[in-house]
């Protein structure tokens, strides 16, 4: 099983809200719209459940990219959850950018339950971006100890 000698395969975590994006991912699956296996999905009730700490945790544990998907603004199952999530993620991503972490490693995309195509397109383009950025070395330890 060793992959030591293989070329870079990124670890990508995707947080998907149960009502829209997770269903969108299911639709991508049932439509056989492929995207790289590097993406692993974690189901959350709503994008507003995604704590910035989860994202930092993923990076610390070796993730090379983290993407969060939720219902389109205005369509949240809980009415307002994704509005809060949007502000939280905007600020978090801006902070990561500020400390020199490549902005391309983080992303938010709104994917509805009907957008299987968008889900797969999004994942394909995100993975491509992570490949181009290569391995994440900067976020292992924010104290930046070497």
């Amino acid at each position, binding site marked *: 099983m060793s992959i030591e000698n293989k070329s870079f395969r990124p670890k990508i*975590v995707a947080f998907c809200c149960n009502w829209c994006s*997770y269903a969108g991912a299911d639709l991508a699956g049932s439509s056989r719209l*492929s*995207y790289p296996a590097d993406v*692993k999905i974690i189901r959350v009730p709503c994008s*507003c*459940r995604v704590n910035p700490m989860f994202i930092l945790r*993923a990076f610390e544990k070796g*993730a090379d990219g983290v993407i969060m998907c939720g219902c389109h603004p205005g369509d949240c199952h809980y009415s307002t959850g994704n509005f809060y999530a949007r502000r939280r993620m905007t600020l978090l991503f801006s902070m990561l950018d500020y400390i020199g972490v490549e902005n391309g490693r983080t992303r938010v995309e709104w994917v509805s339950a009907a957008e299987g195509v968008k889900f797969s397109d999004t994942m394909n383009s995100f993975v491509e971006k992570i490949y181009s950025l290569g391995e994440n070395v900067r976020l292992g330890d924010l104290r930046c100890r070497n």
Partner: protein
Amino acid sequence: MQRIGVFVCHCGSNIAATVDVSKVAEMALMEPGVVHAEDYQYMCSEAGQAKIADAIHEKKLTGIVVCSCSPRMHEATFRKAAERAGLNPYMVEIANIREHCSWIHKDMEEATKKAVILMRAAVAKVNLNTPLQPGESRVTKRALIIGGGIAGIQTALDIADAGYEVDIVEKTPSIGGRMSQLDKTFPTLDCSACILTPKMVEASAHEKIKIYTYSEVENVSGFVGDFTVDIRKKARSVDMDKCTGCGVCQEKCPSKKAPSEFNRGLNNRSAIYTPFAQAIPNVPVIDREACIKFKTGKCGICSKVCQAGAIDYEQKDEIITEKYGAIVVATGFDTINLDKYDEYAYSQSKDVITSLELERVMNAAGPTHGHLERLSDGKAPKEMVFIQCVGSRCSDDRGKPYCSKICCMYTAKHAMLIRDKYPDVNVTVFYIDVRTPGKNFDEFYRRAVEQYGVNYIKGQVGKVIPQPNGKLLVQGSDLLDNRQILKEADMVVLATAIEPNPDVRKIATMLTASIDTNNFLTEAHAKLRPVESPTAGIFLSGVCQGPKDIPETVAQAGAAAVKAIGLLAKDKLMTNPCTAHSDELLCNGCSTCENVCPYGAITYEDKEVNDHGIREVRRLAVVNSALCQGCGACTVACPSGAMDLQGFSNRQIIAEVDAICR
């Protein structure tokens, strides 16, 4: 330590063709806590479920991971299977290795590797799962309808017909609402009273419906299925049981100067009054502000003439406390105040009226007994001008930014009725757009133009100029001919914007129902849940949710009734156990979580805690699990990490993250 069983489904070849299922099962055994792993053709089949049950019994499993299709497909199936075998259903997690794996990947090695990781994440989560019990709450099988207009009446009738008790609370002395003030209705032009009155009678005669008129909701507590409501029954000064509705008191009442609310202040009524002839109940009220007896102590004529002895000057407001399972808001609308639109001379000239006032003028029971005449001098008009969008579609702070939706149609109706009854009267309509989406609506408008010769001019009016000769000079645009028009009119009718009844803000606050910037109540989902408030157990009927005409209101009233019936039909409510909970020892009581909760589920209590020996009273967040829907917004807002979500706890999600990134 959990004892976890992992069950890998082949889903025929759906999964097994791309994922090495036995490899996944084999790898599962290496995960912490896993004591059993197997793969099977169809886990969701009866045989598959039996395998799960057997393993639970034999291996004394405390947790289960099923690697199969999407949890949106079969999570409920496997949870039920586990429950039947004596395991808490919330100890089951699904690893989605079909939609998220086998179906989208082709390479077997790659797909198998991913499936293993998804299995690991699910195992890591189950390791931290705790048995959850859905809460139960009882349902009081009675509904409250706030507002007794057509929306409230229809909702009440539909709920009552399904066999549930319904109470209607109406602020004014009679039910009937705005519709009772209308003369004719579009697009069929039938008489409003003729179709409304039977419904009012039916509601009042229905054995399941109780009507509180001249009453207001004073306080609401509780939650879905179990609301407690205080209703203030304002003193009517007339004994409802004794009154026969003969009407002598109204005839004899010497104080006849109070403006008639029902006729929009266009004429006066007596101090003791029923708002209109078909009022239900047909019991008058004494307007204590206008009554001579109440103002000076002298008079008492109504009491003297009442043969039933029903007049009771001593009557006091009464508070009735009642329990309800569901509440329907049907508070309706009013027209906006026109103080900020003085360019239309509404306050300067009696001959400039609103469309709702025109309804009263056209109505046989109205101030002019149905004759179209100028209110200034009683003369029959020859030229009528209608101005559309007065206060609607205004993004300045004078009016409303929305389209009031009903004006185009009722103006076409008015124009048509006038042209029909008074063929010598010319009717001109100044419009910005004519909006007629609806069955037979555009045909109706075109009929006004083509058959009745109503003159439609595209362009707004800038000013209505009263003339010394008593006429009104209307200065408007004709945008299509690109000219400014000066038209002399005898009467001007303003299609005044409608707005939610001003009381609705107070009511929404009591109900913790959300409300938008225009004071319309917000629906739970703009498309999929249009008659429910985001607050569980609160339903919306009629214009309180957004502008609508009568057919739409009735349709929505029925829909709200069905939703309420669906709730009342349950004996108990199972509450979703995946709700937020606050750790008392960590909570700061800072109110941050409350600010993001869309359901008003979080309140604060001063509570004594024992924090490692230190006893003190602290302000703490308390989640009402009957209201919480489990979105988790509060858990992230909480700075101390006190707020956590059962079923999706911080530690569970982090365990999944770790497993994926391992």
